[in-house]
C-alpha cells in the first residue's frame, strides 16, 4: 500500500525515514534544462501544457544547478563544452541523476567528428538514455518517470555529500599569443 492511501485511511503512519524521503523526492524531481542544441526545443515542449510534464511533478525547470535533482543534457556536447557540463554536474547537490537526451548526447549522433564527445557517459554517470533525433516529448516524460522509478526502488543515493565543496576549475586554455 502506498503512503498516500495509508494516510487517507488512518490519518497517521509509522514508517522509515528512508521511505518518507524517497516519497518526497520522487514527487518533485526538478530538472536542470541543459539545452545545448536542437533537442532543447522538444524538452521545452515536454514542459508545455500540451504534453504537461507537471502531471508527474517535474514542471519546475530550475535555472540553477544548485536547486535541481536531474541534469537533463539535451543536445550535442563538444569537448570544450564537456568541462562546462561536468562543472554544472558538480554544482548540483546530491542526490542527483543524469538524463542523456537524444542521439547526440548518448552516442555523438550524426556528428561523428573530432569535436563532438561520442557519448556523455565517458565523463558522467548517466541514469537514463533517451533515443531519437530529437526524441518526442513523451519520451522525455517517460525518462523522468524512469528516474522516479529508480528513486522509489533500489537506487538510494545519500544526500548532501558534496555540500560546501568547491567546484571544478576550467581547463587550461593556453596563453593568448599565437604568432
Amino acid at each position, binding site marked *: 500500500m502506498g503512503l498516500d492511501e495509508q494516510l487517507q485511511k488512518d490519518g497517521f503512519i509509522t514508517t522509515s525515514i528512508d521511505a518518507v524521503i524517497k516519497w518526497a523526492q520522487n514527487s518533485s524531481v526538478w530538472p536542470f534544462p541543459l539545452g545545448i542544441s536542437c533537442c532543447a526545443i522538444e524538452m521545452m515542449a515536454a514542459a508545455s501544457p500540451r504534453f504537461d510534464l507537471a502531471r508527474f511533478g517535474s514542471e519546475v525547470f530550475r535555472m540553477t544547478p544548485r536547486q535541481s535533482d536531474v541534469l537533463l543534457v539535451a543536445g550535442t556536447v563538444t569537448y*570544450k563544452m564537456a568541462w562546462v557540463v*561536468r562543472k554544472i554536474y558538480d554544482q548540483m547537490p546530491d542526490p542527483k541523476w543524469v538524463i542523456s537526451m537524444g542521439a547526440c548526447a548518448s552516442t555523438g549522433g550524426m556528428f561523428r567528428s573530432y*569535436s563532438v564527445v561520442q557519448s556523455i557517459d565517458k565523463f558522467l*554517470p548517466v541514469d537514463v538514455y533517451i533515443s531519437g533525433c530529437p526524441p518526442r516529448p513523451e519520451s522525455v516524460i517517460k525518462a523522468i518517470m524512469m528516474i522516479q522509478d529508480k528513486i522509489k526502488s533500489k537506487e538510494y543515493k545519500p544526500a548532501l*555529500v558534496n555540500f560546501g565543496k568547491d567546484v571544478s576549475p576550467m581547463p587550461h586554455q*593556453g596563453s*593568448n599569443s599565437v604568432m
Partner: protein
Amino acid sequence: MEQYFENIHSVIKLNTENYEIVKHRNQITYTIPKDNLLDICFELKENPEIALDMCVDITAIDWLDKKHNRFEVVYFLYSMNHNKRLRLKVQISESSLLCPSVSEVWGSANWYERETFDMYGIKFEGHPNLRRFYMPEDYCDPETGEPLYPLRKDFPLMGIPDSMPLPPYPEKFGDVI
C-alpha cells in the same frame, strides 16, 4: 559586361596585372596576388561607384597537392547600395602561410579571419587579435607538439586521440574536479 563590374574591373586592373577572372552563372570571381589585396579592398569599399561595404564571409580552401599553392583564401563581398556581390580569392603557399588582414577595411573580417586561422592555420598579418576561435587555444598534437588545424584535408576526421582532454569520470559520490 555590366557597368558595375566594369568599374570593379578597372580598379583591379589599375592595381595589378596579375589577376584571373572566372565567370560562372553570373557570379564573378577574381584571383589576385596577396600583395595587392589591401589596396584593392580599400578601393572597392571606398569607391562610391562600387561601394562593396559589407564583408559577408571569409574562408579558405585546402587544395592539398592538387594546386601549386596549397591554400586559397576566399572573400565574399556585398554592396548594400548596389545590391551586387563579388568574390575575391588569394592564393597562399604552404611554406609561408601569411596573408594580409583586411580587418581594418571591414570590421566583420576580424572574427572571420580568426575562424580561418583556427581551422586552416593561415596567419593574417596585422590582425589585432589572432587567437583560436573555436578550438582550445593550446590545441596541438600531444606527441609532436605541433598545432592542429581541423579543416585541413590531411587532418583525420575523428581528430588526434588525447589532443582534447575530457573531464575525469566521477568515481564516487562527492567527487569534484
